[in-house]
């Protein structure tokens, strides 16, 4: 073997041994146990500090508040959603306190009106609602619903009310098409309001010989604002011909019937 090759092989052997030694000393011991990573890292990550307790911990001491909240509209809202992280408070309640939101800002994160919020979510216009008073001055945060004789649909369905207000159906009561809604208000997510089911419903006002909507007992339903919405002013169509195979609301948006693309 030429001397060059002998010398070079020697050098490479030295380098290889050095690398093996380095590997032995420098690669962390737990590396590769479960995969190409340091197995001890998992435990280290799992040992991070807790900041939030979870809703059940609060209820252990504050069970009266928890009980009130559970029967209210804020039942699905965790305590820490409004009060912030509570773990250190649960460990030493006298030393560490949670924050107690005051004013209007924090409630606004959820309840200020935004068109993107899903229909039925209670929203208010912060400029018009509550005159700059702290929300808690009228609404108990743990039982926010106010006792009202007949709660209006608008309190939760702000967006629909706003849409409705732009068109000719604004003179109608929600109840005209959707029934009384009393059961719906008890459990809004699970009990849906009545919905018209056929073309005949709209035909009550819009058929050529229509005389106006009637309730289940056959009694005429008066519009809310007669100056705007009266059956005499409703556009009439030949129901046998107009959009024959479709339900009316497959083309016309009932909350804004004039809407054009």
């Amino acid at each position: 073997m030429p001397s060059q090759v002998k010398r070079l092989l020697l050098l490479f052997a030295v380098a290889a041994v050095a690398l093996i030694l380095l590997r032995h000393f420098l690669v962390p011991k737990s590396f590769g146990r479960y995969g190409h990573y340091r197995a001890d890292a998992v435990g280290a990550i799992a040992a991070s500090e807790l900041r939030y307790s979870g809703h059940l911990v609060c209820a252990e001491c504050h069970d009266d508040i928890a009980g009130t909240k559970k029967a209210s509209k804020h039942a699905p809202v965790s305590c820490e959603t409004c009060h912030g992280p509570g773990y250190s408070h649960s460990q030493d309640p006298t030393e560490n306190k949670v924050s107690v939101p005051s004013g209007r800002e924090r409630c606004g994160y959820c309840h200020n009106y935004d068109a993107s919020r899903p229909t039925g979510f209670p929203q208010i216009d912060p400029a018009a609602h509550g005159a700059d008073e702290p929300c808690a001055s009228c609404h108990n945060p743990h039982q926010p619903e106010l006792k009202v004789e007949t709660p209006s649909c608008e309190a939760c369905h702000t967006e629909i009310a706003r849409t409705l207000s732009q068109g000719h159906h604004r003179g109608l009561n929600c109840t005209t098409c959707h029934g009384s809604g009393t059961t719906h208000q008890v459990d809004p997510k699970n009990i849906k309001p009545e919905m018209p089911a056929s073309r005949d419903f709209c035909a009550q006002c819009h058929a050529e010989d229509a005389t106006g909507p009637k309730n289940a007992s056959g009694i005429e339903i008066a519009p809310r604002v007669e100056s705007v919405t009266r059956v005499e002013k409703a556009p009439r169509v030949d129901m046998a011909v107009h959009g024959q195979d479709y339900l009316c609301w497959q083309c016309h948006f009932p909350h804004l019937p004039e809407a054009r693309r």
Partner: protein
Amino acid sequence: MEELLRQLAEALKHVTGFIYPNEIELHWGILIVLYPFITGLVAGAFILASLERVFNVKEIQPTYRLSLLTALAFLLVAPLPLLAHLGHPERAFEIFLTPHLESAMAMFGFVYAWYLMVVLLLEIWFDYRRDIVLWSESPRAWRRILYSVLTLGVRSTSDKALAFDQKAGKFITIVGIPSAFLLHGYVGFIFGSVKANPWWSSVLMPVVFLFSAIVSGIALVLLIYMVSSWLRKTPIYMPCLDRLGQFLFYAIILDVSLELLDFVHRLYEAEESIDILGQMIQSRLFVSLVVVQVMIGTVLPLVSLAMLRALKPREVVRKAVYFVMGSIVLVSIFFMRWNVVLGGQLFSKSLRGLTVYKIGIAGREGVIAAAGLTILPFLILLVLVRILPPWIKTEPTEEAQKKD
């Protein structure tokens, strides 16, 4: 961190459309543009050298050793921008200890070590060995020590030993060509294999990177040959220069063809990302891509070099064209890397918005650091040509001949 926050706040003002919130920070900046540029120069210079050795292109023989030393100088600097960029450079050795073989970046350790030690250093050693042995008999003490070390203890200059040197060198060069392809191709693969990024994800990426590397390597050697001849006040061997110019011309044509192919393919398929990418080219990348890389950096050199071949003007004109176009080509290839690396981060992966790159002056990722890293290889090269002069051919002394 203050500087970072300030830059991000500034960048946030210039976002158009929508970007994912985390995308405001551009993670791979000028240092990551520099790295493929430098390794591209290494690969290109080496491939040029191998043209002489393996394909016996005699005219460029004066640049052979110079190409090797250039490649070495740049290869030594290549890891530095990467190290400077890492969040934890002190842990960089982990790439050697626990490389994750599924990751193209993990290849870096192997490919770099292989190329540096097995290819470049060995090739230089075999080519210079005879001269090193002779220089180690110099009367000056420091030279004696330095060159004795460099001989690695192998002092034979017999015909057999020299013949082996030639054979070994040729063999290494042949091995070196695919190694050079790998050294720079894997960088292209690092980008090309990222399916999350439609600007990068492409089969052609490693190929385009490699061919643009060859272009830049040829341009660099051409420039260094001209500058070193001028500094040493020796005449330039024009057939060599013309040949280099010719190779540069062909390499640019190859490179442009590949990039045009990618471009046409993208336009034709017109898949989802094309709208935001088109917007990006017309706004954020207009100067760096359309003006610098394409118009000035590709069209102009192509036309000039073509005219040289057609009109065959006199030597002075050719030298001027080679010098100017070689410099322009180098800048153009730098901007090609810029457009790839930064282009991939200037648009949002939501395909709905564009952001900006704010580069600082000072700091690890600043302009000064990048400029320094660009100049450093030339300084190293200056040292290398002193230690291993590519121009001096020594004759064996009487004593050395008697030894063997």
